[in-house]
């Protein structure tokens, strides 16, 4: 009965894309845990960054009554901690980059597989007409002028961002807030991809 319901839905392929994305996210995080997160180097770097970030926040709390001489030495200390934080963040990025190649390969293979399965076929319907910039991805490989047709690439992109970011957050694998690069649009940790 469930297979009949599944096959009767016009856009049932979207569920396949989501299902594969979920499995891929779990596999990628498992690989990342094996190669990155459980190592002592990663734990030590993360701890250093967390401590330096918190120390920096405390030091940046300014006291208006502080004498000029004390302020100058405090500024120097802040600069030292900031440099140390940047260096640790850079080391963390380099460390993850070296180990992230395997995960990148998995993602490449999965995307290739999905592409071969769903190329030229809309897998979902978008309930609005996306802006021109987004259409390049949302209508990628599709024929026709209906810009509300959703390509596999766009759906996979949405799955990747939402599922992997939240999975990393849930498992505690998100990059530390004090690390460089955690800006306005925090993506799933790219170095573990």
């Amino acid at each position, binding site marked *: 009965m469930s297979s009949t319901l599944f096959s009767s839905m016009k856009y049932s392929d979207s569920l396949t894309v989501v299902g594969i994305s979920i499995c891929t996210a779990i596999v990628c995080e498992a690989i990342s845990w094996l190669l990155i997160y459980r190592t002592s180097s990663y734990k030590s770097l993360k701890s250093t960054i967390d401590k330096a970030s918190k120390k920096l926040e405390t030091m940046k709390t300014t006291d208006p009554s502080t004498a000029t001489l004390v302020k100058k030495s405090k500024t120097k200390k802040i600069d030292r901690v900031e440099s140390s934080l940047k260096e640790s963040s850079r080391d963390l990025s380099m460390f993850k980059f070296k180990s992230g190649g395997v995960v990148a390969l998995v993602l490449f293979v999965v995307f290739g597989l999905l592409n071969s399965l769903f190329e030229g076929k809309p897998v979902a319907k978008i309930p609005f007409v996306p802006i021109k910039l987004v259409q390049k991805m949302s209508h990628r490989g599709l024929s026709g002028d209906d810009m509300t047709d959703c390509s596999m690439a766009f759906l996979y992109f949405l799955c990747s961002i939402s599922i992997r970011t*939240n999975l990393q957050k849930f498992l505690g694998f998100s990059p530390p807030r004090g690390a460089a690069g955690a800006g306005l649009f925090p993506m799933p940790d790219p170095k573990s991809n």
Partner: protein
Amino acid sequence: MRERKSVKFNLQQQQQQEDQNGHLSPFKLAKLFDPDASWDKDQLGDVLHWIRQALALLCGLLWGAIPLVGGIWFLLFVVLSSGVIYGYYALILKIDEEEFGGHGALLQEGLFASVSLFLLAWILVYSLAHF
């Protein structure tokens, strides 16, 4: 006049040091609505993140089921979720945003992931339920 509450980082660090077992105090649900609770930056960031994700999922499912069609509903979601987050930390928790990096830092917590999740839920429900 809005009451502002500043977070005492030094006091929190002292409390952590005094803890015999070296563990943090258990995070209580009541703290989510307690304007007198003190917040760690990471804790607050995580709470705001998950509130945004829950809102995104709820709105996506709802928008897709009705269905609501048109780009205006996307903008409405962004405004609504930002408004809820702002209302939560400013009016319920009465947080001093300067202690946490300003309104920008608080409002962008989980924003990108929540927009993606909202779009994913909206598109999926709309496609599966109405075609």
